[in-house]
């Protein structure tokens, strides 16, 4: 049997030591009527050769971002992953270890997570980072739960409609069983109008959740939103794009109390949506309410600097029903990857990456809106993603482009009934001028032949 080591002689010796005659006897506590009396109905075993061929054949039936040219965004982005990220996170000692409960045997992970926490704190301009959450959507929900703990008594959560629709849906689920109401503030102009927030916010408001750049890629009036939020005594939660912070002001610097993000952009493969990385940082005074693992610096018995899991009294394994969160397994490996990624880039590399995204997205927007009939959907500055209105049915257009090798963008009508004529296009530093020109050409050609067809 694969991965099993006990030879028949081993088994005999072990059974003798236990004092039973058969392995079967060890299962005696399971009442016979509860036992399975047939084999599991799953396919028979495969060797490595067969498994590898089988999965290669399945993989060949997918159109991957490496073979297609990918302009898809919406919370997951085709950024370049430097080879050092794979090389190091593939070290056995990192990826086959578990949560660093035994500090002496886990200084590698602990120090790496401490470095990750430091980078996240520095990236967001907030003092405290945890060692990861699951991903960007549940991070929004965790941040809201944390905020409602911080301002007890307030039951209302305001969230901008320009926050990722799946994050909002996740928050709805988390809120449904708790004593709180979630109100979505519409964003028909592609951003949360501060006046709309002013109209909605009140003394019952626990927190305001903004995404900046938002789901459409456009920039929010984040500082103003923060000021309105603070003035109402509520917690300001911002979901950010880590890459954007190579250029944009840091959440902590424009007033965020809790900053969260989908960290996939920081060295995590697209991987059909997961595992990804939930980032969370907050102001120092909230440290004892933050969910998730925290690594802290201390000294050992000889006075040597070292690192441990700390403030565990917030956590489920100690506090059980009084814990700040139920999280146990987190996304350690992707926190490590993010730390390696950001170390590889450094401040200058992150800045240049962000600038390339901005310039290429701007160029793409200009090329696409130069096509007759296409216009920008929102008249707002954007970072690496933008929305266009197209003079054609969106789905057939996207299918045609896909057949030409372009994953051209997202059909916004999938989430926004009022945006059925719009496509969201994301452009990372990996896209070349030729990629963008090719996309523009393909769209132009399709629209012209479509117009031709319609005119016949």
């Amino acid at each position, binding site marked *: *049997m694969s*991965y099993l080591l*006990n030879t028949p002689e081993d088994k005999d010796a072990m059974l003798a*030591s236990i004092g039973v005659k058969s*392995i079967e006897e060890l*299962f005696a506590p399971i009442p016979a009527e509860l*036992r399975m009396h047939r084999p*599991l109905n*799953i396919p*028979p075993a495969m060797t490595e050769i067969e*498994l590898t061929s089988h999965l290669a054949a399945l993989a060949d039936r*997918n159109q991957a971002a*490496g073979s297609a040219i990918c302009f898809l965004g919406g919370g997951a982005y*085709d950024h370049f992953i430097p080879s*050092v990220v794979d090389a*190091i996170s593939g070290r056995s*000692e990192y990826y*086959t270890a*578990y*949560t660093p409960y*035994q500090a002496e*045997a886990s200084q*590698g992970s602990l*120090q790496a997570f*401490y470095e990750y*926490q*430091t980078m996240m*704190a*520095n990236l967001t*301009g907030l003092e405290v980072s945890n060692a990861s959450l*699951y991903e960007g*959507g549940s991070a929004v929900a965790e941040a809201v739960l944390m905020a409602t703990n911080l301002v007890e008594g307030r039951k209302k959560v305001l969230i901008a409609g320009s926050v990722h629709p799946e*994050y909002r849906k*996740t928050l709805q689920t988390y809120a*449904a*069983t708790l004593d709180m109401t979630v109100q979505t503030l519409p964003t028909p102009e592609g951003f949360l109008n501060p006046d709309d927030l002013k109209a909605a916010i009140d003394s019952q408001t626990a927190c305001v959740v903004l995404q900046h750049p938002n789901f459409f890629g456009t*920039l929010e009036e984040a500082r103003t939103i923060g000021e309105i939020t603070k003035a109402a005594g509520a917690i300001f939660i911002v979901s950010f794009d880590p890459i954007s912070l190579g250029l944009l*002001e840091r959440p902590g610097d424009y007033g965020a109390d809790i900053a969260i993000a989908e960290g996939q952009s920081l060295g995590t493969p697209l*991987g*059909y949506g*997961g*595992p990804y990385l939930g980032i969370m940082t907050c102001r120092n005074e909230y440290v004892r309410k933050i969910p998730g693992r925290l690594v802290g*610096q*201390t*000294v*050992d*018995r000889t006075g040597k600097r070292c690192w441990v899991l*700390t403030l565990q*009294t917030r956590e489920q*394994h100690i506090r059980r*029903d009084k814990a700040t*969160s*139920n999280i146990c*397994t987190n*996304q350690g490996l992707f926190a490590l990857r993010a730390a390696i990624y950001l170390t590889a*880039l450094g401040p200058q*590399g992150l800045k240049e990456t962000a600038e390339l995204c901005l*310039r290429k997205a*701007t*160029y793409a927007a200009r090329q696409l809106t130069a096509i007759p009939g296409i216009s920008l959907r929102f008249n707002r500055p954007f970072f690496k993603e933008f929305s266009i209105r197209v003079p054609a049915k969106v789905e057939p257009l996207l299918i045609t482009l896909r057949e030409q090798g372009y994953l051209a963008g997202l059909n916004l009508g999938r989430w926004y009934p009022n945006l059925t004529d719009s496509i969201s296009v994301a452009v990372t530093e990996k896209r070349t001028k030729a990629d963008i020109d090719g996309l523009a050409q393909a769209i132009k050609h399709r629209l012209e032949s479509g117009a031709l067809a319609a005119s016949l």
Partner: protein
Amino acid sequence: QSTELIYEISKPGRRAHRLPPCDVPVTEPVDQLVPPQYLAKNAPPLPEVAEIDLVRHFNNLSTRNMSIDTNFYPLGSCTMKYNPKRHERIAAMPGLAGLHPLQDDDTVQGMLEILFEMQEFLTEISGLPAISLQPAAGAHGELTALYVAAAYFRDIGQTQRKRVLVPDSAHGTNPASAVLAGFEVVTVKSDSRGLVDLNDLKSKIDDRAAVFMITNPNTLGLFESQIRTITDLMHEAGGLVYLDGANMNAILGITRPGDFGADMQHYNVHKTFTGPHGGGGPGSGPITVRDFLAPYLPTPIVVKEGDRFRLDFNRPKSIGRVRSFFGNVGILLRGYCYIRTLGPDGLKAVSENAVLNANYLLSRLKDVYDVPHGDRCMHEFVASARKLRREKKISTMDIAKRLLDFGYHAPTVYFPLVVPEAMMIEPTETESKETLDAFADTLIRIASEEADFLHAAPHTMIISRPDEVKAAREPVLAWTPQSAGK
């Protein structure tokens, strides 16, 4: 061995990764593309190092970890089994790793087939017919299932069911998840055998009881032989039974939660089906449920229509989502590979050998260490150092730390809470008799070592006995030039 942080070897101007020149026209400065009020004054303070610095730093750091690939790691409840290398190679295939989560179904038919089959496998293995692969980890699965339960009770008008019953031996995630899902927690006692105290349970079952959460085999490594009685009691009272699947490794192909009466159950795919634990994650925590709970599961679910697979979002009673995108696909993929590698006989052999290994280790240790709940177990057992503590002032912590000196990761310690000086030992099926013997010999040897020597253990690791009180009292959670020397 230095503990320099990457920030401490940073030097302005050094860098590793470089970006290509901008190949689209650079027609204006950045602050004309984005209004200047949005822009940061400076780039964020990140380390500045060359590629060789980066590689040496993180490579050398890695060697300060124990890991399955280098050490025996009998961490109870965590199922630290071998992580096959083939999974890593397969998961890195561009046709799998390079898929965007929002691609059209037609462009990911191979991936959807894998996920569909995984749904089929996991429902078959648990005996519960409906599934969501969405939860990101075991605790997330618990939470999702409790949301499903809450939605069900709302739907059938039993909103008074606000209580979740949890045995005192349960994982901490159970009560934490229950509270997060809006329930109150009621603790049920264990009896002297380590099983559920039926009388206590009965006294707590009424029309306020929504869900009984049970781990079976439980955290003491015992199969709850009264399970059918327990589930009948809950069902008769109109409640649901939730099975914490942390210990599925003991019962694959042997008995199924669906067969012994559970209504909902989660998997820890990363444990039972060997996703690498990654220093703390990622995991994957799918849930399977009975048919009548299926309408409430999160969306999307993979469905098959003819030869085509698609994501089904059209489930009106669904609780919605518990995260973005589909799930922790990378871990599901590894679990899929594992199940395909083992097949029905192999999975059953996994549990048989996991149970054999645990019982063998128990038999080797029971004369030196207390095993309060009997000399048989399933895939793990809980030993106690209470006698050593009493007689020689040697604590479980001392033993755990001393084990590190011999190249063994420590067991899970001081859990479950119902056993004093607990050591929860789970060898898993991927260890050899030789390894178990050497480990047993070491534990026996340690029991005879001097107490003072053990109090100072470990003696050979890079650090020894960090000051956890200091860490918690004066938290230093990020490096700053000032924090370095604290």
